[in-house]
């Protein structure tokens, strides 16, 4: 019997859940990684996906970003299947995977300008670029190519891309890996700010995070699928 994840007691604010995963089943190379995975996420909430390596965290996040197709189940946005409202959903989505998603030969400012043009609908101005650079402490490095920056600064440039896209839903794959203490706090502050202003976030991580006033739901992924019963 596939294990049902048991989210911590859902906090009181019964807001209309914006993002839902219903009966999601993920597979990689023919092997089922997880089955019947479901969740609901409302504004201001943060969902933390934990689980052993190779249990399908990345596959799940890519399914939520509509980058990968689930074997079964459905992602819903505002009650509608995400695939049907794909442009609206993607306009509200920002994803940070293992790879940064920015060009090493371009400067942070150029990268962010492209990300802004790509990610947002025209309403959200380009002026967010300077704001994002400031928030990540990259004002000084604004014009040096990302390739010449340190790894930590490169990571911050990738994080800056998230905030410049003005998306309500952030999906982060292992955002805390290889970060020193100071950078980790900066990410936590960023997440607090995002969720505090009504944003939502889903992230997979191994380390624990100290988030004071954000409703964190932790879900264990890794249904014990007996070999065979797909």
């Amino acid at each position: 019997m596939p294990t049902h994840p048991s989210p911590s007691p859902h906090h009181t604010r019964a807001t209309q859940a914006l993002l839902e995963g219903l009966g999601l089943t993920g597979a990689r190379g023919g092997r089922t990684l997880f089955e019947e995975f479901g969740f609901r996420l409302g504004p201001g909430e943060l969902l933390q996906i934990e689980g052993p390596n190779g249990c399908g965290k990345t596959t799940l996040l890519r399914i939520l970003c509509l980058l990968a197709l689930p074997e079964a189940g459905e992602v819903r946005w505002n009650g509608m299947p995400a695939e049907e409202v794909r442009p609206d959903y993607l306009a509200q989505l920002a994803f940070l995977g293992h790879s940064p998603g920015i060009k090493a030969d371009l400067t942070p400012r150029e990268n962010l300008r492209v990300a802004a043009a790509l990610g947002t609908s025209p309403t959200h101005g380009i002026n967010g670029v300077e704001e994002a650079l400031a928030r990540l402490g990259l004002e000084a490095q604004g014009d040096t190519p990302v390739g010449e920056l340190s790894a930590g600064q490169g990571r911050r440039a990738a994080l800056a891309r998230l905030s410049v896209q003005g998306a309500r839903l952030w999906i982060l794959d292992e955002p805390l890996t290889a970060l020193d203490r100071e950078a980790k706090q900066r990410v936590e502050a960023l997440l607090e700010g995002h969720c505090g202003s009504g944003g939502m976030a889903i992230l997979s991580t191994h380390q624990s995070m100290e988030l004071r006033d954000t409703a964190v739901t932790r879900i264990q992924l890794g249904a014990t699928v007996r070999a065979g019963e797909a």
Partner: protein
Amino acid sequence: MVRAFAAILGRDLVLALRRRGELGNPLVFFVVVVTLFPLALGPAQETLARIAPGILWVAALLAATLAMEALFRSDFEDGSLEQLLLSPHPPALLLLAKVAAHWLATGLPLILISPLLALFVNLPGQALPVLVATLALGTPTLSLVGAIGVALTVGLRRGGLLLALLVLPLYVPVLIFAAGAVDNAAAGLSAAGPIYFLAALLVLAVTLAPPATAASVRISLG
């Protein structure tokens, strides 16, 4: 929508200029391949002149195929290709911008240098304008159709050779009509028919190739 198109086009052109070293590769390849033929066939002017259209077009086609590999390679590795798919704007349009930038960086130089190479192989003078016209109409089609093959093989480690096997058969119509047009012009005949067909192939490629490329990228990244 247009802003996103312009952003991708501008970004890729800036990137191409920043890696100017790589920009020259298809160009040098084109020149080298063309110079191989007189070395192989002897410098006799008449023999070269007769097969000049074929030499020029086969060399241009191979140079274009060689350059295709780089279209998505770096974007795939640093996650930018993923970000393209995550944009609310239609992926086919963004990929069209990428192919346009790629063509400007690799296809256009081939056209600009073709008159010089026409001298190498003693192409009759009256065929030169037709050569440039066929390259102008043909190389964008090669880039557009080639982009489908690149999208299908972007996830594979050794995609290069497989890419050529996938796209070269699809390049045959362009090669036939382009080389045929230049051949006609060299022989003093009218080259209008094949050139119109090349234009038709380009229109077909511009409309059908980007959606196919978008579907292929989604599958490769899936």
